[in-house]
């Protein structure tokens, strides 16, 4: 049975997940340089060992209010679209927005979760104030609900 692995994390008290194949690393460094006049969901820029990573505020992106960086906050650094192609991710379209290295700022990192693909249910129109278009599906875990995010939408940018 096909299984999916998710990197999970918390924003406020809700659990979200993204496919582990798109994740490059989790970074503790939250010395993010803000970029004035950038769209609100752009938290700023981070130095990842000499490479500049654009950090998107995951909360703001999915429609939640902006808040300060917490001591538990982490940056989930994603692979670029080229890299995820190489690592054999099937749905490369999902990462089509990631030309450069992008990171997501989240409140707290959760466990790695493996679920059967059948267990992923279609998303509700709206979940906890989060616009349905950002949600790929939901998984009922033992204690809580895992909201699987749609990276294609998270990484979308306003066309110039």
């Amino acid at each position, binding site marked *: 049975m096909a299984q999916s692995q998710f990197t999970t994390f918390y924003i406020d008290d809700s659990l979200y997940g993204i496919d582990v194949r798109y994740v490059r690393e989790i970074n503790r460094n939250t010395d993010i*340089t803000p970029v004035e*006049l*950038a769209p609100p969901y752009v938290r700023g820029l981070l130095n990842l060992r000499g490479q500049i990573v654009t950090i998107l505020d995951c909360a703001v992106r999915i429609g939640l209010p902006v808040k300060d960086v917490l001591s538990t906050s982490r940056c989930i650094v994603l692979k670029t679209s080229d890299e995820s192609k190489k690592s054999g991710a099937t749905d490369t379209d999902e990462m089509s927005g990631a030309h450069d290295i992008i990171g997501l700022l989240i409140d707290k990192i959760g466990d790695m979760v493996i679920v059967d693909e059948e267990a992923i249910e279609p998303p509700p129109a709206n979940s906890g104030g989060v616009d349905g278009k950002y949600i790929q599906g939901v998984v009922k875990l033992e204690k809580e609900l895992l909201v699987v995010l749609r990276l294609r939408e998270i990484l979308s940018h306003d066309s110039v």
Partner: protein
Amino acid sequence: MADHDQEMLNELIIESREHLSGIEPDLLELEKNGQSVSDDLINRVFRAVHSIKGGFGFFGLDHITALSHSMENVMSRVRDKLIRIEPGIVDALFAGIDKLRVMLDDAANSDSIEIKAEVEALAPFLGEKPKKAVPVQVQAPAKMPEKIEAAIERDALAAHPSITQEKVIEAIRNGKLLYELALTLGSDILDKGKKPAAFFDAWEKISIILDVIPPLEELAQALPSTQILVVLATVLEADLIEQGLGLSAEKIISIDTSELKRQLLHSEKTKDKEPHVDAAVKVAATKQSETKIEDVLRVRVKLLDDLMNLAGELVLSRNQLIQSVNRKLSEALESDRMFKDLDRTIAQSFVAVTDVARRDSQGMAASIASETARIREAYKQALGFRLVDVPGVSAIMQDIDMVTSMLQEDIMQTRLQPISVVFSKFPRVIRDLAKKLDKEINLTIVGQEVELDKSIVELLSDPLTHLIRNSVDHGIESQAKRKAAGKKVVGQVTLRAYHEGGKVHIEILDDGAGINAERVREKAIEKGLVTAEACARMSETEIQQFIVQPGFSTAEVVSDVSGRGVGMDVVKTNIERLGGSLEIESTFGKGTRIIMKLPLTLAIISSLIISVKGRRFAIPQVGIEELVRIRASDITARIERVATAEVLRLRGKLLPLVRLEDVLGMNPTFVDPVTGERKPDKRSRWSDRRGVARKKELDDDQPKSTANVGTKTDERRQGPDRRVAIANAVKVVVLRIGEQRYGLIVEEVHDSEEIVVKPLSIYMKTCSCYAGATIMGDGMVSMILDTNGISRLAGLKYNELEKEIEAEKEKFAKQAAKQIHEMLLFTNGGAEHFALSLASIARVEKVPLETIQRVGSKEYINHGDESMRLVRLEEYLPVSGATSSDAEAYVIIPKNQAHPLGIVAGNVDDVVQTELVIDTSNIKGVGMSGSAVINKQLTILVDIDSLFKAAEPEMF
């Protein structure tokens, strides 16, 4: 298409493009010098086209093959002197090259591109069927003397008795290479789904099959294990054959023909030279020298980019390492100092304790002594490791530092490309344009070897083409006009690249009509780009710069104003985007010179680090004109409001000001100079600022004009001024965008640094205020500001502002008579009172009379190492002189004079601030600019200039 096929095709396309670029100059040469060009050159063109034909024939791309075939045939007739070179031939060949380029862009689908027109254009020059040319070639080998025979590689061709001498020689003459292939019928042909006949047919297209063993007809029934030996002559290199046939390298044997070539060359030199024979030999010779150039390697740009990134990363890590090592070293020094203190303390207490103990008992003193020694030893050991610098660590650091810098430089070099990549296309551009416009133009190119970053070279092509077109189209006049103007009929365009001041300069020079500044001025005023008044004060060069203004460049203007202007604003913007600048110099009727100044590389730029609200930003040094610091007490006087904008009075000109935190929308806060806290700032204007702390400002952007003028001015300085606070000094970075300037107000100005520019991701494409981002020495990311974008964002409308400023200036002119002046008051022994503006005085010195020396009628004092001439007012002005009772006199030394003379004053009375109302009607004459009532006294205002002129007419 299989992967390796695709790869091979790509390789072929790249090579073919290089071939095409390579022969363009040759064709131009051919056109220019006609019949007299070297056969070498003709052969080069021939070979290039031939290789393209061969290569693409192999892929079955018929259109490319057909067109290049026609071109090849024309060239072969040129080579054999069967046709004369005429412009039409070159035109047709150029058309062919252009079409080939188009087809190369999408080679896989090139067969859908129409080539009829080009082939037909070439057809007239083919005249008789090319076959008729063949006998000429065949004749040559027939005449060959027998001695060549010995040279043929009999061993290699021993198995192929059917291959004749003539065939081999002819192949070599055509610059072909000979190969023997050892194939296995099964694995090399049948298993690949091909029939032997079709297999060899495909090869016939691109090579001459000299022999096949066993004969082709037998192969149809042969067993798959049958070994086939093929000898073929082709222009393809061994590796292409290898890839194309999917053969392993060992199955392809190159037959060495160099000895044969040498002999051929020798034998032909000794006999009567037939032009085409000579040519063929030269082909062989070139071929050999070409293969030797193997020290150049083709590297993927991606790889270079990665290396660049890594080098950048290394530089940053190095910076961090140096920082932290230095911190550790200074910590070690600090603990060393602490240890020494500690040691001293212990020693002192030992003395004290033993002293006490001695009175008690000897044993106790000894035990305290040994105890203390032990403690000291323990301390030493505990701290010792910090005292000793890790051996050689600074030397190692220095090495790492140097190697890293060198590595970065070298990697940077790999991205450099000679500018000839762009320049080489211009001979053709000029030729085509000149032809079209019926002008004769000579193009001179200088500095092809100058190197620039690849990305800059790529982006230069369009702006340069534009400028060159302008030069030819609008700059160079028609032949008739040139004759009438007494110029040479042939116009001269020069393209020159050279290094200067760490930048690459590219000049486009023409001896054409130049820019009519008068017409530009009219147009600029008509279009409302500038007021007539402002224009009147501008130099011709300044006026000419208007042609790069966006509003100026319209077609209508161009036809009117002897050219230039179309899209010049676009050119300028593009050059500026590359971190460069554009200057125009033109003499009407004589010609125009356009100079581009470009950075060597885009990746690393020198920039100034500034900060606002504790955040650092980098400003590229290219755009920075100067830094101005306005002390808090001067803010009200120097920063003013014009309409809605704040402006700075800088050397008599008004400079629009922009506050970085406003443009970027950062919340206004300020640091309280007393508590050091950051507080929200309710005030909106700098001119409203009031200092909280009272501190004397030491640093100033103005020279200290009053420092030595007696004690009275100093008192004035120390007088109560509630607005002086060092923390509130305003720091202005004066930035330049083309002809315009503006001031960016920042909080702190830090060092200048070389920074690695990293592009911004797509999410920030809308932020025009940033040119990129960079990583600082401490690892934090900082934004690089785009001075152009900030000006746009701040909505600086220079022209509107300029009008306002004009109006303001007039107001000031009216007020000038009533302005506050600081005046030095003095007397000269008589009853008259004199005054000099403090601003015009460098120093006032008190000198004993005996130090004044007389030479003839003139007086001098020693001033530093030189003697300075003294001037007494009574000698030039109708005033009374000094009474000689005083033992001392004052000497006033003016500033801003090339040859300062000292003015003798009997007594210096005062320095006053006064609203000067100058009266020029009553008192005037040499050395006086008028009079004024100061301190209720009629005072003569001394005019230094005319006084000095009267005293030393030959100097002033």
